[in-house]
């Protein structure tokens, strides 16, 4: 167990006295305090040696994955130079139906080596809210690659000087079913963190740090390697296996890593070596920091108890408790909704604020980084919770259901975003899952819908490769938001319970495999027992969204037909007197969908006598408009398409309602509120 460190503070605060009674003295003290309070937390001191975890690397049962790529790594972190020196042995099994002569490796860290890398060219040195530090370059240098002591020929095929892919050519082809042990030595210079991995001050978040083999996948007999250069908008794809990783770090540092701690050894040189083991995972990441504390709680799943740990700096303790509650809730909810979490530990890293933009909000097997700690996220504004739940959820969407993030990022990001919204609503209340603060409330996805640019403005479909998106905004909009809202809209079509059951079927069928979008759609169609291509294709494979509009509403009092009737001598004229108005109103309501995606929807119609009716517009296929003919004792006064706001793909929120008369009540309320605030500021600014 880890206990808080002994900490020596050198702040002048302890020496500042507040006992002076004179105003001038008090002011001088305030000035001294101003300078003094920017204080240094002091030098780290040695932390107690952590006790190995007394649990197996997996919760129960036989191995769950085809353990194709297993790694054994010995690494040493130099916190002064911010470097890692390491040796690695990869055992890879050829599961293809043809021999393999070449093994491609991702060298992700070379994305930060120079401005020639594909990543730097596409990102222009920025990632989400963080920017590359001026001198914070990073790289990985593979010194030696060998099999049975024989060095392999290496090639760097990346375009235009990009070095994020290395090909190693085997001395002899590896036949189907055979295994090979590839040994490597490599050095890593960690970058200043701005894109998931690196350091910031004393904080180290180390991900994508070792030479990672690509994935050989495809139709049996024609499998090909998936090992593209590292693009700015894409993430990762690897095979399942086991990881046995020994990390040598200074004895002042707290470490959290993928898997369970199986051994901890003190070394002579004020370092310690911590050995972690993880099974049925496809990545390994770790954190080291001398100032971290840790709090923990237990989540209960069908397979057993999961220890959830949150690592945080002392001043983030209030947020750590929120992340812990969210993490426990997420593991239990995702386990119930999909498949049980199969590992005994989940580590949640809450980076220090100065590193959160670069290192926060990322997922690795059994370890995630969160973010969102902010003055503007008090309890009730659940940005921190949503990030934690989202990242923990990735342990299903992409951790267990290991889709190819380099080709179908939406399949993990967007699907996870949708399920995250369900979990938020379950944990924090329907309609208040994201915001519940002094009378303000919001669920997660409706806020997405309202707050992001129109979905019809996204230039390419959801189901596009990440690197095909022209910019980060369109990538995020389509991959996260539009995907989640498409699934939310599908929920309104097929029903919430049916969709959840379909997703559970998908999770069970493809756990510890590499599902594709085709697999998801086929599972949905099969599980829901209906052809959904009329919705799924335009929603996921075409540009555009839904755009409801109340086109027109006309009402007139019914009467017998007026006009001239008959011919010749029998011609007669029927006037208003002859065909008086009856007490019945005849109304026509025309609604349209100007978007590319069809979606059935409810239509609420209200009449002047206070009665209402609800219609269902099926809107399938090419049907783009619907006209309702209504006969009633009062005219129509209000039409609202999708009154509950369940068709989340609708772009036209402002046009989906029509009122005959402007509502006076809301205007009066607004006016009264505005009067109060104006008067308050008059009293502040004016002399009276």
């Amino acid at each position, binding site marked *: 167990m880890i206990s808080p460190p002994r900490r020596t503070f050198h702040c002048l605060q302890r020496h500042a006295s507040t006992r002076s009674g004179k105003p001038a003295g008090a002011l001088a003290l305030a000035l001294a305090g101003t*300078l003094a309070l920017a204080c240094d937390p002091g030098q780290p001191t040695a932390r107690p040696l952590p006790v190995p975890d007394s649990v197996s690397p997996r919760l129960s049962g036989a191995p769950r994955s085809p353990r194709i790529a297993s790694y054994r790594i010995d690494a040493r972190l130099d916190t002064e130079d911010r470097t890692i020196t390491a040796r690695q042995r990869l055992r890879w099994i050829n599961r293809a139906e043809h021999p393999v002569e070449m093994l491609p490796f991702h060298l992700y860290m070379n994305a930060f080596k120079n401005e020639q890398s594909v990543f730097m060219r596409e990102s222009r040195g920025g990632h989400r809210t963080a920017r590359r530090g001026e001198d914070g370059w990073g790289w990985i240098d593979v010194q030696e690659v060998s099999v049975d002591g024989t060095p392999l020929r290496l090639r760097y095929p990346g375009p235009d000087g990009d070095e994020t892919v290395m090909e190693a050519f085997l001395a002899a082809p590896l036949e189907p079913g055979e295994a090979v042990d590839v040994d490597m030595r490599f050095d890593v210079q960690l970058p200043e963190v701005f894109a998931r991995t690196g350091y910031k001050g004393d904080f180290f978040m180390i991900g994508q740090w070792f030479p990672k083999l690509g994935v050989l996948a495809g139709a049996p007999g024609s499998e090909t390697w998936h090992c593209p250069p590292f693009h700015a908008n894409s993430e990762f794809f690897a095979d399942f296996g086991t990881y046995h990783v020994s990390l040598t770090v200074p004895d002042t540092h707290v470490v959290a890593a993928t898997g369970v701690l199986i051994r901890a050894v003190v070394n002579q040189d004020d370092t310690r070596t911590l050995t972690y083991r993880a099974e049925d995972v496809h990545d390994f990441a770790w954190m080291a920091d001398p100032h971290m504390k840790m709090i923990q709680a237990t989540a209960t799943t069908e397979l057993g108890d999961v220890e959830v740990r949150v690592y945080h700096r002392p001043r983030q303790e209030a947020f750590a408790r929120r992340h812990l509650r969210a993490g426990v809730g997420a593991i239990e909810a995702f386990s119930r909704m999909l498949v049980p979490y199969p590992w005994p530990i989940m580590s949640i890293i809450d980076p220090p604020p100065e590193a959160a933009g670069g290192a926060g909000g990322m997922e690795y097997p059994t370890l995630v980084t969160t973010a969102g700690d902010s*003055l503007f996220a008090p309890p009730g504004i659940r940005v921190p919770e949503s990030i934690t739940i989202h990242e923990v959820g990735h342990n299903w969407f992409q951790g267990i259901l290991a889709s190819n993030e380099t080709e179908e990022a939406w399949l993990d990001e967007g699907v996870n975003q949708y399920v995250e919204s369900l979990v938020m609503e379950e944990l924090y209340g329907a309609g208040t899952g994201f915001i519940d603060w002094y009378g303000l409330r919001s669920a997660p996805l409706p806020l997405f819908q309202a707050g992001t640019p129109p979905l019809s403005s996204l230039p390419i479909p959801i189901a596009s490769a990440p690197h095909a998106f022209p910019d980060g905004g369109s990538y995020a909009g389509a991959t996260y938001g539009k995907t989640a809202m498409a699934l939310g809209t599908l929920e309104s079509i097929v029903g919430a319970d049916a969709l959840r059951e379909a997703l559970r079927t998908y999770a069970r069928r493809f756990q510890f495999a590499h599902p594709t979008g085709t697999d998801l759609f086929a599972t949905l169609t099969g599980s829901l027992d209906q052809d959904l291509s009329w919705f799924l294709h335009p929603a996921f494979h075409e540009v555009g969204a839904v755009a409801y509009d109340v086109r027109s509403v006309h009402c007139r009092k019914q009467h017998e037909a007026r006009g001239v009737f008959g011919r010749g001598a029998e011609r007669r004229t029927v006037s208003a007197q002859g065909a008086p108005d009856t007490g019945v109103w005849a109304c026509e309501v025309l609604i349209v969908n100007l978007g590319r995606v069809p979606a059935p929807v409810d239509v609420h119609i209200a009449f002047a006598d206070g009665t209402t009716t609800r219609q269902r517009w099926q809107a399938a296929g090419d049907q783009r408009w619907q006209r309702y003919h209504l006969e009633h004792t009062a005219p129509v006064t209000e039409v609202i398409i999708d009154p509950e706001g369940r068709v989340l793909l609708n772009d036209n*929120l*402002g046009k989906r309602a029509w009122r005959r008369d402007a*509502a006076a009540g809301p205007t009066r309320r607004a006016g*009264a509120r505005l009067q*109060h605030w104006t008067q308050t500021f008059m009293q502040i600014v004016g002399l009276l």
Partner: protein
Amino acid sequence: MSARPGLRTRTLLRAGARALREHWQLFASLYLIQLLASAGAAWIMARILAGAWSHGPLLERAQAGDVPALVFMLRSTPEVFAAMFWVAAGAIAAHGVLSWYLAGGLNAALLTSHRVHVRDRRGAMRRFGAGGAVTFLAYARLALLSLVAWLLIALIAAGGVYLLRARIEHALTAGQLLDALVPALALPAALGWLHMTAAAYARIDLSRRALIPYAPQVRLPAARSLLGAYRLALSHRQPLLHVLLYALWFAAVSALYAGVTVGRPWTGAAGALGLLVLRQAAALLRGAGAFILAGGQVAFTTRPGA
């Protein structure tokens, strides 16, 4: 400006309360002016808002606390909200300028209230009107000098914030932010408090000079009055304490109003009426506090025995 040693703060408060009792109709008039000005601006803002959003359900949903509705309205019609902002800003600025006249009139009425019977309303109104007019330009010059003072205070505040920018930027809770902001802003806050006090006493001094019978027709000395008022405020703690009490009163009334109203639905006609009563009560209490403050300040400068 002469000092009045031995005058206690509670004496100032009693004097202010007495001024409010004796001049309640003047207070009511000032309050009504403010109410009408703010209501007029609000009516314009409400018409702008209604023109864009009253034909759909989003406006009432936003007012009921639905954040997506509010966000959508802000995002899709930013020009509507910009127009509302400028209407409010203009009204607040116009009332600020008008308050130079109103404050001048109030000071004149309070300064001369001992000369006439308290029931002489017409006399009070004449003194108010004439007093406000004669000191308007002097108060305007004083406001320009105040602007310079506030700019200097803002510069000092910016410097303090800059020194502690790392702590402020990474503050995660209100407590951590206060820990960073208090030392950063303590000095400028103190200077602002000092200036507010001095400016108030400078205005009273200008009004007093304007009331000197048969005085030469010279420009009222805004700068000299302000300097004298600074000397007064630095040499006596009662004026500073008096202003601090008013500021605390203002904050307490506002906090109480927020505590009672925020987070509750206030639906229907009863809710609307209840909100109206609470809002006007808060405004009245704050306004009364300002009136009592002025009364006490006049008492400090005019107490017999000087």
